[in-house]
């Protein structure tokens, strides 16, 4: 499998503090890869570095055959990487339809756009019902659907999503993952997903990376790690596993 995205040894600083150190992640074409890890592990930092919101002090990010290290966010997006960042970044001043239309601004293929538009509205019927409503009036789950739909409308080659399950009811999370898996299977969309719950990641992903304290602790095929034991150890570290194990639903 050829790597579509290759993160090679990146270190990212917030002023003096290194949030991520020497992290390498590869995502093959058509793969679903999950990065899991506890709070403050550096997961969001890693995704924002791919998008060009942050620049690494060391290491490179390669997309296809292009080096995109330190590229502008808009250029990264135009190359085919669409990011759904942490927190729901709907434009509250725009209505639902305008939010979705922003997703199509880079495209010129009119007829295809309309088809994709229909696809997204079919996928999330709530959005169709609320087309003309201000996006800020949607519920949290509906906003999450909106930002995923909007990212899909860019017709990305790679979609990165930061914690799609945050604050959503388990039933809606199931639905979101169902949609994402379906998109991969039907359209060959490549996905890099950040998840807090390693259980969910092991279910959805082909491969997973465990990130803790800014470093990759473990990586491998989801199949091989399915029993969860190794992941749990890497996730919490050996010393404080006992302290925290009760707090997170495994």
């Amino acid at each position, binding site marked *: 499998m050829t790597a579509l995205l290759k993160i090679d040894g990146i270190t990212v600083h917030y002023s003096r503090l290194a949030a991520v150190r020497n992290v390498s992640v590869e995502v093959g074409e058509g793969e679903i890869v999950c990065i899991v890890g506890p709070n403050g592990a550096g997961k969001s930092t890693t995704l924002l570095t791919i998008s060009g919101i942050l620049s690494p002090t060391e290491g490179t990010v390669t997309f296809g055959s292009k080096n995109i290290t330190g590229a502008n*966010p808009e250029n990264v997006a135009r190359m085919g990487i669409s990011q759904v960042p942490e927190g729901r970044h709907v434009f509250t*001043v*725009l209505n639902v339809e305008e939010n979705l*239309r922003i997703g199509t*601004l880079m495209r010129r293929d009119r007829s295809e756009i309309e088809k994709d538009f229909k696809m997204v509205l079919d996928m999330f019927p709530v959005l169709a019902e609320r087309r003309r409503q201000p996006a*800020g009036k949607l519920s949290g789950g509906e906003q999450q659907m909106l930002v995923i739909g909007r990212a899909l409308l860019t017709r990305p080659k790679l979609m990165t999503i930061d914690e799609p399950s945050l604050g959503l009811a388990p039933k809606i999370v199931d639905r979101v993952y169902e949609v994402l898996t379906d998109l991969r299977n039907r359209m060959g969309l490549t996905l890099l997903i950040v998840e807090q719950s390693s259980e969910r990641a092991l279910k959805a992903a082909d491969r997973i990376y465990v990130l803790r304290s800014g470093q990759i602790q473990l990586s491998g095929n989801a199949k091989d790690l399915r029993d969860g034991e190794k992941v749990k150890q890497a996730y919490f570290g050996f010393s404080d596993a006992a302290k925290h194990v009760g707090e997170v639903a495994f």
Partner: protein
Amino acid sequence: MGYIIQVIVDALSLGSLYALAALGIGLLFGVLRLINFAHGDFITLGAYALIVPAYGPDAIRFIADFHPVALIICTILVVVAIALLSELLVFRPLRYASAATLMVGSFALSFVIQNLIIMIYSGRPKSLNLWSDLTAIKFDVGGVDIALLPLLIIGVTMVLMVLLVLFLKHTPWGVQMRAAAEDFKMARMLGVRANFVISLAFVLSGALAAVVSLLFEAQLGILMFRMGTPLMVFAFIATVIGGMGSLVGSVVGGMSVGIVSSILQAGLPSEIRGYRDVFVFGLVILVLLLRPQGIVLSRATRERV
């Protein structure tokens, strides 16, 4: 009765000029979180563009003698070019700096522009009549003569506000600008080009400044190297009391300041009329004490690029 109409027309036309200037400031603040203190100097430059750049004591008419349509277009082009140049040379290098640094940058730009005008045109005021028909044509309303110019100022402002709203609400570029104003990073991650949106804001702001230049010069009949500064100061106050980041707030604020000034001008006893601005600023302080966020709340977040 006629006198009251006179006061109302004056109040609305002054408020309109402030509102137009405030919109120019508000647009840039919305997208870039920049309080552009050089906006007044953009207005000044639009007026100076009407004459030949020469140091002598008299104004040698240049664009001022063009056909009105050509005159308006040329003035807008000049001011827009200056606004874009300012973006490129001053504000683009400062894009990731703090809002305070940006503001200081705009002070510096204002200073540079004023001194350039003094160098090129000299610091002496020059008399320049523009469209003198507009002040000469008068309508008799209830026994008082109302000139065409203030009515034109009010009309032009209303038309421009409608056009701006249509642009922002119903064109793809306008929607991109509103999205970027709310969440610039997210907009960029969806492919909205930062340079494009910011340049667009400078173009609109410059075009609005140019219109203010012409209307103000037609009213004033004189060129001064700091003629735009009072407009900038009142427009800034207007955006503050209207609510920073809200364009509706800019208009409401501009109109309020203009109306209050005019009413004070008409109503204050003549001995203290000279201190009119003291009362205006006093009222501003009062508004800010009662409503620190401004009259109109902005939904946009405060985060920048």
